[in-house]
């Protein structure tokens, strides 16, 4: 029963989202929606490590940036089409995740966070200073749009709605991937690792392998979003790897609800849409926003989803 209801909710959400660009007919609101959808996909993949395995990582923006740069370079130097760039970006992000994951996962909770933070900072430093490859702060401009070729048939994303639908497809795929991973034995194993690593290994769980699975699947999705972003923005800059983006993702997850399927989209919508609505009070916008986040941290420590679930249970009990 609950499953069927959830299915209906998913379908409804998809229909509403599919109609968005036609309904609002505003380039501005469509681009806000694209940003939100990118954050949704990133938050879903980020949650695999933060919410499911239960480790705080600061590497996610680094994976996104790795994907964006690989895609831009592959387009500029090799003239690769989008599907190839996408594959390269995902593969590159996975390789980077393996290289930093294997040593970092041997560390404790806090050391893991610091180690991934170091990677995030280094990634931005490399992008800024490796002028020969990345052009540094001059950025890599002229990334071609998303294109698909099949024989003589060719399609290119030209308009904002085109990019909107691509972002929507990406967010849905990320959702389906995460749902699949978390609702099988794999997800249960991650929860077990989060709850008690010693007990899990005594039960025969190869801890590092499962942590790496979460880390690399998350990185693959982030790399894919990076490849998309490179084409959408048509330029890739070192600022795309900024620490601030990882912090945004952390806020989204903690605000929405870690380790849940509804948390990432809710967090992303609140996080990206709210500041836009607050533009009514332009001067006070960021102040109000900051205040709301502080209030959220105080009153909704496990996120909106956990709070809403509690409220619903209470209503049902009193009814």
């Amino acid at each position, binding site marked *: 029963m609950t499953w069927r209801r959830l299915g209906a909710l998913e379908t409804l959400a998809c229909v509403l989202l599919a109609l968005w660009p036609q309904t609002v007919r505003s380039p501005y609101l469509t681009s806000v929606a694209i940003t939100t959808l990118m954050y949704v996909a990133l938050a879903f993949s980020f949650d695999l490590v933060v919410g499911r395995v239960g480790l705080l990582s600061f590497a996610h923006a680094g994976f996104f940036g790795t994907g964006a740069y690989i895609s831009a370079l592959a387009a500029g130097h090799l003239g690769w089409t989008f599907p190839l760039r996408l594959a390269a970006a995902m593969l590159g992000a996975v390789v980077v995740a393996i290289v930093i994951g294997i040593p970092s996962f041997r560390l404790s909770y806090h050391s893991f966070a610091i180690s991934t933070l170091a990677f995030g900072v280094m990634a931005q430093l490399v992008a800024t200073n490796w002028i020969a490859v990345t052009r540094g702060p001059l950025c890599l401009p002229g990334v071609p749009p998303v294109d698909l070729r099949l024989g003589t048939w060719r399609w290119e994303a030209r308009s904002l709605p085109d990019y909107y639908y691509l972002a929507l497809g990406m967010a849905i795929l990320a959702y389906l991937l995460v749902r699949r991973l978390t609702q*099988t*034995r794999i997800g*249960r194993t991650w929860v077990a690792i989060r709850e008690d690593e*010693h*007990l899990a290994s*005594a*039960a*025969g*769980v*190869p801890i590092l392998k499962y942590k790496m699975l979460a880390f690399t699947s998350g990185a693959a999705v982030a790399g894919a979003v990076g490849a998309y972003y490179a084409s959408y923005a048509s330029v890739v800059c070192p600022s795309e790897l900024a620490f601030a983006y990882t912090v945004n993702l952390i806020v989204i997850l903690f605000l929405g609800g870690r380790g849940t399927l509804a948390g990432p989209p809710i967090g992303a919508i609140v996080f990206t849409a709210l500041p836009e609505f607050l533009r009514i009070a332009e001067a006070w916008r960021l102040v109000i926003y900051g205040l709301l986040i502080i209030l959220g941290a105080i009153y909704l420590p496990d996120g909106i989803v956990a709070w809403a679930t509690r409220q619903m249970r209470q209503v049902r009990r009193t009814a």
Partner: protein
Amino acid sequence: MEEPLLRLDGLTKRFGGVLALRDVSFRVHAGEIVGLIGPNGSGKTTLFNCITGFLSPDPPSDVMIFGRRVVGMSPDQIARLGMVRTFQEVRVFKQLSVMDNLLMAVQQHQEDTIGKRFLNTPRVQAFEAKGKDRARELLEMVGLQAHATTPAGLLSYGQRKLLTFIFALMPDPRLVLLDEPAAAVNPVLIDTLKAHIVQLNRLGTTFLLVEHNMDVVMDICQRIVVLDHGEKIAEGVPEAIQKNERVLDAYFGI
């Protein structure tokens, strides 16, 4: 002679300047219930951790399980050989249901891969169904069948203790290492646990248990190994251990 299930030779473990275990050797044969006793701090849990891969013993220690050398193997590799341990402190996956806890206990002992798990193949589903049957059987055995869907964190202490016991039994292991199964358990429950251990032993499970409760050890163990200050000071049948001068000395002092 038949290869022992567990063979320890010259087990030594040093923490900095402290010698936690010194040259401990003994065997556990198939079908036995062996007790490991000793005063607090005598190295019993350290010994458990060295056998199960949570600590690596110092050379030239040698640990053989089912005829395989396990020194240097990780805890999960050793567990998958078919030797399961419990912990002194009661550990459960608090946010998982009792049933999911038990399914976690067995899934790594079933042949499947991450890829198959992702696809949730019929084979994986069959394993899952088999695990559920086994879990229901064990829940019934200890009287927890009404709690299958309860999150393990909501169980009482005694119920959790029972859960950890059947958690260890889930994969039908050949050798079970129990770390203080009767600690902080009420007398009625102790008798139940004792009965279960004896019953399972008759059906072919071998046990090595660390225990402080002398009644439990003397009642059910066929052989006892005594540690004191990291050294084995005695080994023998319960009657002999009870009269052994060194053991009495270690426990009561003079």
